[in-house]
C-alpha cells in the first residue's frame, strides 16, 4: 500500500463557515457517550428476589439438606456434557473472579477405534473431598470442611499465600492469585446453596449435565477403593473426592486425556529453591562440624569453629529470610505454626524456627567461651546436639512436605536422597572452606597442613557426590518407560525443555563434588604451607560449584515435577 499521509485532505480551518461537518462529528461523539438503554427499555419487570427459573433449578438440587453421614457433591452426567464450557465462564462471572481466574475447567478424553472413535469432555471443579489434601497441608488452617454440607471452604483472609495446598491437591483445584497474594477456590457457591439456588456452573449448563446431589460418605469411601473415579484422573484413594461422574457408555481402554502427551515445565519457585538448599547447607554445616568436633578426635581450632558456626548461621538465617519471599502475604508468616497438627509445612517451619535461634546461641557461646576448644563444655555439647537435631528434623520435615503430595518425582526415596545428600555435601563443603580459610589466615608459625579428618571429608564428599549424581542420572532410565507416566514426563522435561539447566547441574556437580575434592586429595599432605592459597581456592571452587549445582538440582526438582491433575485440553 502506498503511504498516503501526503494525500490526506486538509481539515478545514476553524471559523470557516462552511465547516459544518466538525460540528456533526462533535455531536456524534457526544451521542455515542450517552447511554440510553435504561430509559428506553429497563425495568420492564418487577424485581423478584427469587430466581426466574427456580422451577428448572429444583431438578438440579437435592430436595433436602444432608443427613448425618451425608454431604453435598457435584454430579456430572458425562452423557449430557457437550463440551461448551459455559460452566467455566458462568463460574467466573457469577462469582466475580479476577480477570482470567477460573475455578472450573473442562478437559477432553479421546480414544477408541477407527470404527468407533470416542471423545468425552469432562467438566471439573473442586471435588470437595472427604479427606481434602489442601486442608491437611495448609499450615495456617485456612481450609474448613463444613461438617454439615461437606463443602471444603477456603478462608481467604486466613491464607498467607504459601501455595502448599496447590502442591497437595491432586486435582489442581486451588488457584493462586498473584495480585492478592492468596489462593482461592470453588466453595460450591455455598451462599447460593444456602439460599436455595444452584451453583453458577449448575445454573449455566445448557444441557443440565451438572447437578448437586447428596452422597453418603461411606459410599464414597467404598467407591474410592479401586482408585478410579474417572479414566485419566488421579488415584481417588488419596483424598476421597466426592464428585460423581456418571455415564451409560462403556469407555474404550485407550481413552486418554488430550493433554496426555503435553509436557510443560512447572513454576520453579525460586524462594523455595533457595530456602531448601540454604537450610540444608546450614544444617549440614553444623552437623558435620559438630560431628567432627565431637567424634573425630581432632577438633577444629577455635577460630575455625567460630567462623564455621557464624557462617553456617548466616546461611540458615538467609534461607529463612528468603523463604518468606515465597509467601503471598509475608506479614502473616507467623500464622504458619497453626497447622502443626496436620501440616508438614507447619512442622518444617517450626523446626527451622527453633534451629535458627539455637544455632545463634551456639555460635554466641563459641565466641564467648574462654576455652581453647569449641567443645569444651557439656553445655556446648548439649546445645550443639540440639542445634543439629532441630536442623535435621527440619530437613526431614522438608522431605515430608514434598513426599506427601504423592507426585512421583517427589517420592520419598528420591526426595530423601536429594535433601539428605545435599545436607551432607554442602555441610562438608562448608567445613572444608571455613577450615581452609581459617588455616590460611593463621600465622605461618602454625602451619596447618591437611589434617586426617580433611581426608575423611574429601573422600566423603566424593562418595556422596558420586551417589547423588548417579541416582539423579539413573532417573533418566525412565525415558525408556513404555508408558508416558509422570516419571517419564519429568525425565522428558529435563532432557527436553530444561536441557540446558540439567547439563549445568551435572557439570557443576562434577566440578564441585568430584574434581575439586580430587584436586585437594592429590595435592596431598605433602603440600607445603605455601600451597594454602591453592587449597583455599580449590575449597572455594568446590563450595561455589556445589551450591550452584544443588540450586539447579532443586530448580529442576520444582520445574520438572509433573503434578497430577484432571484430564485436560489439548495444548498447543
Amino acid at each position, binding site marked *: 500500500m502506498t503511504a498516503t499521509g501526503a494525500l490526506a485532505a486538509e481539515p478545514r480551518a476553524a471559523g470557516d463557515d462552511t465547516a459544518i461537518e466538525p460540528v456533526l462529528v462533535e455531536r456524534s461523539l457526544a451521542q455515542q457517550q450517552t447511554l440510553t438503554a435504561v430509559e428506553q427499555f429497563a425495568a420492564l419487570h418487577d424485581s423478584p428476589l427469587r430466581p426466574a427459573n427456580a422451577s428448572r433449578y429444583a431438578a438440579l438440587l437435592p430436595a433436602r439438606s444432608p443427613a448425618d453421614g451425608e454431604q453435598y457433591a457435584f454430579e456430572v452426567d458425562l452423557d449430557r456434557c457437550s463440551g461448551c464450557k459455559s460452566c467455566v465462564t458462568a463460574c467466573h462471572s457469577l462469582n466475580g473472579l479476577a480477570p482470567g481466574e477460573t475455578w472450573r475447567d473442562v478437559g477432553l478424553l479421546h480414544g477408541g477405534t477407527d470404527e468407533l472413535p470416542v471423545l468425552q469432555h469432562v467438566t471439573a471443579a473442586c471435588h470437595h473431598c472427604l479427606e481434602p489434601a489442601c486442608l491437611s497441608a495448609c499450615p495456617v*488452617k485456612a481450609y474448613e470442611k463444613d461438617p454439615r454440607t461437606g463443602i471444603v471452604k477456603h478462608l481467604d483472609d486466613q491464607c498467607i499465600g504459601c501455595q502448599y495446598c496447590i502442591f497437595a491437591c491432586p486435582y489442581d483445584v486451588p488457584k493462586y492469585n498473584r495480585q492478592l497474594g492468596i489462593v482461592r477456590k470453588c466453595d460450591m457457591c455455598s451462599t447460593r446453596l444456602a439460599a436455595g439456588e444452584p451453583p453458577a456452573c449448575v445454573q449455566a449448563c445448557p444441557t443440565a449435565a451438572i447437578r448437586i446431589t447428596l452422597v453418603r460418605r461411606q459410599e464414597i469411601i467404598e467407591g474410592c477403593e479401586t482408585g478410579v473415579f474417572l479414566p485419566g484422573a488421579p488415584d481417588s484413594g488419596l483424598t476421597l473426592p466426592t464428585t460423581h461422574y456418571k455415564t451409560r457408555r462403556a469407555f474404550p481402554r485407550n481413552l486418554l486425556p488430550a493433554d496426555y502427551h503435553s509436557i510443560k515445565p512447572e513454576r520453579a519457585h525460586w524462594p523455595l529453591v533457595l530456602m531448601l538448599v540454604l537450610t540444608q547447607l546450614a544444617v549440614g554445616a553444623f552437623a558435620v562440624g559438630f560431628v567432627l568436633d565431637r567424634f573425630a578426635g581432632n577438633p577444629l581450632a577455635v577460630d575455625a569453629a567460630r567462623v564455621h558456626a557464624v557462617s553456617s548461621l548466616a546461611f540458615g538465617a538467609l534461607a529463612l529470610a528468603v523463604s518468606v519471599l515465597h509467601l503471598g502475604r509475608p506479614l502473616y508468616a507467623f500464622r504458619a505454626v497453626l497447622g502443626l497438627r496436620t501440616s508438614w509445612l507447619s512442622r518444617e517451619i517450626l523446626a527451622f524456627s527453633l534451629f535458627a535461634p539455637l544455632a545463634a546461641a551456639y555460635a554466641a557461646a563459641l565466641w564467648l567461651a574462654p576455652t581453647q576448644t569449641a567443645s569444651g563444655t557439656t553445655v556446648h555439647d548439649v546445645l550443639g546436639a540440639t542445634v543439629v537435631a532441630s536442623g535435621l528434623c527440619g530437613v526431614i520435615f522438608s522431605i515430608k512436605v514434598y513426599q506427601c503430595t504423592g507426585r512421583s518425582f517427589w517420592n520419598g526415596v528420591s526426595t530423601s536422597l536429594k535433601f539428605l545428600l545435599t545436607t551432607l555435601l554442602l555441610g562438608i563443603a562448608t567445613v572444608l572452606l571455613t577450615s581452609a580459610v581459617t588455616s590460611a589466615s593463621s600465622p605461618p608459625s602454625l602451619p596447618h597442613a591437611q589434617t586426617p579428618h580433611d581426608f575423611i571429608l574429601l573422600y566423603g564428599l566424593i562418595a556422596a557426590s558420586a551417589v547423588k549424581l548417579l541416582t539423579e542420572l539413573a532417573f533418566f532410565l525412565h525415558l525408556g518407560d513404555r508408558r508416558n507416566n509422570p516419571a517419564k514426563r519429568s525425565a522428558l522435561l529435563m532432557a527436553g525443555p530444561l536441557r540446558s539447566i540439567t547439563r549445568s547441574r551435572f557439570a557443576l556437580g562434577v566440578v564441585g563434588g568430584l574434581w575439586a575434592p580430587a584436586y585437594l586429595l592429590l595435592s596431598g599432605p605433602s603440600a607445603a604451607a605455601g600451597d594454602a592459597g591453592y587449597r583455599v581456592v580449590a575449597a572455594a571452587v568446590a563450595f561455589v560449584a556445589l551450591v550452584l549445582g544443588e540450586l539447579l538440582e532443586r530448580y529442576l526438582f520444582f520445574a520438572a515435577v509433573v503434578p497430577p491433575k484432571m484430564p485436560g485440553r489439548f495444548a498447543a
Partner: protein
Amino acid sequence: MTHETSLPAGSLIAGLRSTFHQPHGPLTRQLQLAPAGFGLGHVPADSKPDATTAMVCGYCSTGCALEIHLKEGQAVGLTPAQSYPVNRGMACPKGWEALAVLNAPDRATAPLLRSERGKLQPVTWDTALSTFAARFKDIQQRHGPESVAWLGTGQMPTEELALLGAVAKFGMGIVHGDGNTRQCMASAVVAYKQSFGFDAPPYTYQDLEESDVLVLVGANLCIAHPILWDRVMRNPHRPAVVVVDPRRTETAMYATQHVALRPKTDLELFYGVAHILIDGGWIDRDYVDAHTAGFEEFAAHVREYAPARVAEVTGIPCEDIYRLARTIHEGRRVSFWWTMGVNQSYQGVRTAQSLMNLALMTGSIGRPGTGANSITGQCNAMGSRLFSNTTNLLGGRDFGNATHRDEVARILGIDPARIPKRDSWSYPEILEGILAGKIRGLWVVGTNPAHSWINQNQLRDIFSRLEFLVVQDMYDTTETAQLADLVLPAAGWGEKDGSFINSERRIGLIKKVARAPGQALADFAIFRLIADYWGCGEMLQAWNSPEAFFQTLKQLSQGQPCDFSGIRDYRMIDEEGGIQWPFPVDRPPQGTHRRLFEDGRFYHSDGRARFLFESPRSMPEPPGEKFPFLLLTGRGSAAQWHTQTRTGKSAVLRKLYPAGAYVEVHPADARELGIQPQERILVESQRGSVRARAFVTPLVQRGTVFMPMHYETVNQLTHASFDRYSKQPSYKACAVRLSREA
C-alpha cells in the same frame, strides 16, 4: 454485663485472636455475593444491578438474549435472559464473556491514517473523513465509480448495514459491495431462492424440540451452536439424531447414527437416500403433486444412485444408507439441518438442495418438527441477506427489476436513477476486480479478510495492489487493519442500538449499555458522517437514529415475504421477546414460534417448490501423490469466534482453547510419518506452509486432517475454489502434506 475495665484486655485478646485466625475480612468480602433482585438470584455484591435490560448477543446467529445488569445506566454484568424464547436462560461461553471483550486495550480509540513513513498515526475524525471522501472521490474520478468497493459484515445491526448499502450505492455511486456472509451463508441463500423462491429458512427453533428425527449435516451444534444443541437435548420425543459428518464431532458422539462419510460425498449420499425412498415408495406423493415441481426429473436423476454405487463413493456401507433412509421414512416429524459442512463447498447449493429435496419428497416441511433448515452463522447474517443492498436490492429485492427499483426509490425518497440496475459483484469477484485493476479503493467494515479469506497469501497480495484501503473496526490490531491506509474506530456490540435477525427469522434488539472507548463511533454514526463529508447527507436527514431508520426498513419489507411492517417499534420487539418475520401490519400472526409454508405455498409465482439437482462435481484439489492428505477446516471450540478479534480479548475464553494452531491427525497416519503426539509439524499445501502442533487422535479419518480456522495461518493453506452459483468459498477441502520439522 462485662466489667468496663476488662474491655481493653478483651479487645486485645480478640485482636490477637483475629491476627492469628481471621475467617472473615476484606479478602473474603471481595467474593461476597448478594441477592440481585430482578429474578437473577445472587450476583457479586459489588456489581449488584439497579436495573436490567435484555439484548441479543452479538456473536452467532442463534440470537440468544442476554440480560444486561445495569448500574447507573452502565453494564456491570450479564446473565442469559431467562424468558427469551430462543435461549431460555442459557448462553455459551462467548455470550457470558460478551462484555469483557469491550474493554480490550487494543480497542481502536481514534482514527488512524498511514503516514508518509508508512506508520498508522492518530488523526482527528475531521481529517479522517475528509481524507476518506477525497481519496475515494479521486479514485472514482480517475477510474470510474466502479473503482471503489466495500466489503461488509454480518456482525452489524440491520439498520447499519442497510445504511451502509444505501449510502454507498445511492449516495457515493459505488457499484460493488459484498459481505463476509459470502463466506458462510451464500450457498443456503441461493439454494432457498432457487428452490423456494425466496431466501427463507422456514423453521423455528421449537422444531428442534418437536422432531422425532433430526438429520444434522455438516453441523457440529455442540461447538458451533451450543444453545441449539441445548434445544435438541430438551426434545422430549427421544428423537433419532443422525449426524452426517466425516469427523467424530461432539455432536456425532450423541448421534443415534453417525454417518462418517468421506469428505464431500454428501451429494451422492443424499441422492442415494432419495433413490431408496423412491424405490420403496416412501414418499409423500400428495404433497409432491400439490406443492412441488420437477419431481419426475429428479426421480430420473437419482435412479443412477443405487445404494451400492453410493456406498462405494461415500465409504458408507449399504445397510447404513438403508438405515438412514428407513429412519427418515419412519419418522413422523423429520427435520433436516445443515451448517458450514454443506455451505462451504464447491457444490454447496446443490448439496443444500439435496436436503431440501428430501424434505419436499417426504412432505417434511411446513409442519412442527420438520423442515429443510439452514443454521446460519453470524448474528445478523439474516439481516445482511435481506438488507445489505449488495447482491439483493434492499428488502430481498432484485436490482434488475425496474418495479423493485421504483419501490425502493419511492420509500427512500430518492431518484430511481441512483439505483444500479445490476447486482454487485460477489466477494471473490471484487477481489478479481482488484487484481484486474478495475477496483482501486476498498472499504472494509467489520470483517477481517486478511485472516479469514481463502488462500490468504493471495488475498494479501491482492490488497497490496489497492490505492486506498479503509478498515472500519472495533480493534485496530486486526490483521486487516494492520494493512489499512485509514482505520476508522467503531463502537461495538453493547455500545450502540439496532436490530439483528437470527436464524429462525427472529428480529431482536441490541442496545447501548456501555460507553465506547475514546472517539470510537457507532457504525451508524460513521456512515452518516461519511455521507455528510461526501456531500450526500441530505438523503439521510430523516434517519437520525437506528430506530428512525428501522421505520423505513419496515416500509421496505412491506409486501415482501420478509414483511415485518406489523412491528410498532423497538419497544414492541423488546416486550415480545423478539418477533419473527413475516409479521405484516395488516394480518399480524399469533405465536412465539412460527414456521413457514404451513399452507404449502412457496414463493415462486406458481406457489410450488422446485426439485433442483445436478451431477456431483469432482473435488477441485483432491489429495494426490505430492499432497496426500485432505485438509478440513472448521470451528475449534465454543469459546472461539471466527478470526478471534473479539474472543481473543477475554482472558477466560483464552484459557478454553489451545493458544496456537494445531492439526488433528489420525494415529495410523502419524505412525507412518513418524509424527509424535504433540509434536510441532509442518502442514503444507501448494500455497503455503504453516507450523502446527499434532493432535494425534482417531477423531479424524485416515487421510484427512483437521485444523480450526480461528488460527491466522490456516487460510494460507486453503484452496480458492467456489460454489459456481453462490460464489461461497470451499474452505473444507484442499490437499496438504505433513512433515516433521527439520
